[in-house]
């Protein structure tokens, strides 16, 4: 394996620091990843060399910025292996991508009484947009429950599908349970009933290769900041056959063709869905992050991270006072756990004092907490810059926290 984590860590300036007099150990990667130097440099490069508003300018700088932004769209297209750059819509993040589909897809393809199936393990961002539709009587939300290990039962899906089912919207990797859902099979089942599928790849895109044509998903969303890119930029991939039929989500500049008081016509894909000045600096920096990931190599990332994840899961499981939440056979990148005697908040606070960043709480997945009857979990999530030594530090610090709280 051509992968040296000590070299990789040098790319991430933030990892050098100490927290509470201890070396920072960052295990909150599922919330956001740290940024490599070249992504940070790219942001500075745009602002210092070719900052100008994109698309409508005739001048030199605007041309450079526009070219850089549209090259970035090509980079995203290549990264996802989408068929066309018209299928790549830039948004503020996965949340906006889902809201866009919820609004525009439902306007064109749904009417009162129609159903959307979501799983019990969705992030709130893939549940609440559909509930908003439900409140407006535009859709009915159907829950696909998971079992106590955190796995979905494919046979149950067949039972949930009715002739009113118009869309299936599912998470690829659960941000709380770590479950990798069998998205390919799920899509196959849905398509056999002519139901399109939206895949929330927010916790998948940074951990393994995704080929949207091979998956055959109809929509796929992710946020840039979870794959070493900047905040405030995200992607909506959608098959052209759907996007071309869907009405615009927001109105404004950029998304129009002609405007008059007697009527307005809309721009073509992908601009139809990109109202207003886009976050072109973020978009250009996101493409740089994707190129960075490509340079390291997804195969290398998968190999290293799976070793790291196995070690993390073993070390956490070796502490008898901790109980894992999410024990699906196929998991990646994170572990969630609880104790019988302390609140996740207690553990997180003490780990922070020992220099370790983890996340505590419901992780925007309250239905999962309700399923297990717990107030929250402690979640440790990895990136490829983490090391087994850091997992040892986490393990030892957890032992100390547990002995203090017990």
């Amino acid at each position: 394996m051509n992968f040296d984590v000590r070299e990789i860590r040098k790319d991430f300036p933030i990892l050098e620091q100490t927290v509470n007099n201890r070396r920072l150990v960052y295990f909150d990667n599922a919330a956001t990843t740290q940024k490599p130097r070249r992504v940070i440099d790219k942001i500075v490069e745009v602002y210092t060399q070719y900052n100008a508003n994109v698309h409508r300018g005739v001048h030199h700088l605007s041309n450079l910025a526009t070219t850089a932004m549209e090259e970035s769209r090509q980079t995203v297209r290549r990264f996802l292996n989408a068929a066309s750059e018209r299928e790549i819509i830039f948004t503020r993040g996965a949340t906006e991508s889902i809201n866009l589909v919820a609004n525009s897809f439902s306007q064109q393809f749904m009417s009162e009484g129609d159903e959307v199936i979501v799983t019990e393990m969705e992030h709130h961002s893939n549940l609440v947009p559909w509930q908003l539709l439900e409140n407006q009587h535009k859709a009915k939300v159907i829950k696909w429950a998971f079992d106590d290990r955190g796995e979905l039962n494919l046979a149950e899906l067949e039972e949930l599908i009715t002739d009113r089912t118009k869309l299936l919207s599912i998470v690829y990797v659960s941000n709380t349970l770590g479950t990798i859902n069998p998205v390919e099979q799920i899509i196959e089942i849905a398509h056999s009933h002519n139901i399109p599928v939206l895949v929330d790849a927010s916790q998948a895109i940074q951990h393994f290769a995704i080929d949207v044509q091979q998956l055959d998903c109809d929509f796929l969303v992710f946020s840039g900041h979870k794959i070493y890119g900047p905040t405030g930029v995200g992607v909506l991939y959608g098959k052209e056959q759907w996007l071309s039929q869907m009405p615009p989500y927001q109105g404004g500049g950029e998304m129009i063709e002609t405007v008059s008081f007697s009527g307005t016509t809309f721009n073509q894909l992908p601009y139809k869905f990109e109202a207003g000045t886009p976050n072109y600096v973020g978009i250009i920096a996101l493409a740089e992050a994707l190129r960075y990931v490509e340079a390291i190599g997804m195969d290398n990332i998968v190999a290293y991270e799976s070793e790291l994840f196995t070690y993390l899961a073993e070390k956490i499981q070796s502490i008898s006072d901790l109980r894992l939440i999410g024990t699906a056979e196929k998991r990646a990148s994170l572990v969630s756990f609880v104790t019988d005697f302390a609140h996740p908040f207690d553990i997180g606070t003490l780990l922070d004092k020992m220099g370790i960043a983890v996340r505590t709480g419901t992780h925007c997945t309250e239905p999962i907490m309700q399923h297990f009857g717990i107030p929250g979990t402690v979640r440790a999530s990895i990136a490829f810059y983490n090391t087994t030594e850091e997992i040892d530090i986490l393990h030892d610090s957890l032992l100390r926290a547990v002995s203090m709280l017990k």
Partner: protein
Amino acid sequence: MPRYFELKMNELESRQQQIIDEFGVFTDWMDKYEYLIELGKELEPMPDSEKTEQNLIKGCQSQVWLTASCNGGIVTFRADSDAIITKGIIALLIKVMSGLSPKEIAEADLHFIDAIGLRENLSPTRSNGLASMVRQIKMYALAFASE
């Protein structure tokens, strides 16, 4: 200022000073948390019947319940939390505030919080929780003062 009031002011002051002295011994935040955890464990648990939505303090990452009663011009607080450290923090507040008059509580300047570094050491979300606890304690006191 009447004499009994002065005495009581000193009581509030001396309680705060005592906590500042106790925390002054600790060199590491882990030791301070060890002490908070101890306080949390020592705090008498609240009966479940009092852990109601009405007694719940909003704005904390963990759940905190607080009740107050006023007898003979003296306020007594009881509190509980599902997190031990949070319980330790509210126990500290109760240690300072319980047994004083409504007016004293309402007007109390809780400088010990900054002096022991509790506020700066808690992240904004938790610090908001601390602020919510103090606000609720003072709200109870104001309600009793106006009775």
